[in-house]
């Protein structure tokens, strides 16, 4: 009897929190009541503090962007440098494939921004997907952050698709990237390091050819040259000469603008290549909007404890 009385007393001394639909309500012993939208409560419980969940980030990774699928996007920046690229030769007997012939080209590139999508498969470590994109920028991301305007990269094999929802903006062709090089890693740091390493190596160290011109709409190199954005990159020969004269010229080239900021592109990728209304990282808001969604988390956690 005493125990029951004690139980009743404890019930009366604690506030009661109720989640119902899209609302969170609280009632205190003194009769004070309050309510807020559930998303505000969830955001308050899970403030937006930086968190790499124990992963030491590889060099060049500027930020991680959560994807609604449960994975994330790693945003990597390569500083302006002179590269030795393997490029399809003018007299190549084939535009791509085993018959294609290549030559070395020494060209400067501006900031190369890669957005690598790591997809989260339930119960497994997120791993590099095949949906990764590349852009140029004339300034480092540190200056304007996620408001940095991204430009299309004047590179072969960075594909232009028809402009429509669900399509990438500047897809890095990874048809020949062997998943064995990064799949099935036991931890997030290993998956991030090996996936990003493989992607960057594939982007800059494997040969560039005319595959995008045949399989997709075009490449952003062909588009940039056709648009006549700058006489110094009107041909590879001119690009090489301009590099020799002043490798910094690439920071003055008016690359084709994507019309989007880093935040808008990342949010678009995170939403499955659909332009998102708010180019900001979406955390709890997208996942916990109703009491039903919160209830699912509680029941799943209870299930894990019981099993």
């Amino acid at each position, binding site marked *: 009897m005493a125990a029951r009385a004690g139980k009743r007393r404890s019930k009366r001394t604690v506030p009661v929190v109720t989640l119902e639909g899209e609302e969170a309500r609280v009632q205190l012993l003194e009769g004070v009541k309050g309510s807020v939208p559930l998303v505000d409560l969830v955001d308050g419980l899970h403030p937006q503090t930086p968190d790499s969940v124990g992963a030491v980030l590889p060099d060049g990774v500027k930020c991680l962007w959560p994807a609604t699928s449960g994975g994330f996007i790693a945003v990597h920046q390569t500083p302006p440098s002179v590269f030795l690229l393997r490029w399809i030769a003018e007299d190549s007997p084939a535009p*791509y494939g085993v018959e294609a012939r290549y030559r070395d080209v020494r060209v400067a590139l501006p900031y190369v921004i890669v957005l690598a999508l790591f997809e989260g498969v339930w119960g497994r470590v997120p791993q590099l997907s095949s949906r990764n994109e590349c852009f140029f920028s004339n300034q480092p991301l540190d200056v304007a952050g996620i408001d940095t305007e991204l430009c299309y990269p004047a590179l072969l094999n960075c594909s232009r698709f028809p402009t429509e929802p669900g399509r990438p903006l500047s897809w890095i062709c990874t048809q020949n990237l062997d998943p064995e090089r990064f799949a099935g890693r036991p931890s997030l740091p290993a998956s991030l390091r090996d996936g990003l390493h493989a992607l960057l190596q594939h982007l800059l160290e*494997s040969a560039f050819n005319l595959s995008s011109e045949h399989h997709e709409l075009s490449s952003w190199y062909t588009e940039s040259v056709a648009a006549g954005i700058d006489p110094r990159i009107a041909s590879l020969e001119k690009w090489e000469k301009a590099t020799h004269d002043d490798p910094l010229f690439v920071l003055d080239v008016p690359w084709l603008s994507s019309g989007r900021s880093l935040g808008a592109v990342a949010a678009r990728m995170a939403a499955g290549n659909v332009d998102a209304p708010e180019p900001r990282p979406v955390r709890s808001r997208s996942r916990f909007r109703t009491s039903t969604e919160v209830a699912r988390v509680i029941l799943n956690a209870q299930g894990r404890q019981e099993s």
Partner: protein
Amino acid sequence: MQGEKKRELGRIEGGSPPGDPFSDGSDATGFTGTVDVTHGTFRESLPAGNMTVGEVRRRFRDRLDIHPEAVAILAGVRVGDDTRVRAGQLLMFVRQGGEKGGLLQGAA
């Protein structure tokens, strides 16, 4: 601004800072300057000025996970292990190989 551009140029192109052309590159303490060394995602400024490419490769093989078959690119030019690296240069170890794109028509 012009000074900044020149410094950036030195970093990109690999030019060493102006100084005594007969110097061995070291200062009074023996420090020979830093070199940016990259391999994949690894990128570090290392006190490797005046080392040969081969010495950099051996010394930092584990630290930068440099693949044994990686070739050295210095300021955008392929070089051998005997080449001496100057302060301010960018030394990339890369594994050039493979190609992008589908092998077959319609492979996407």
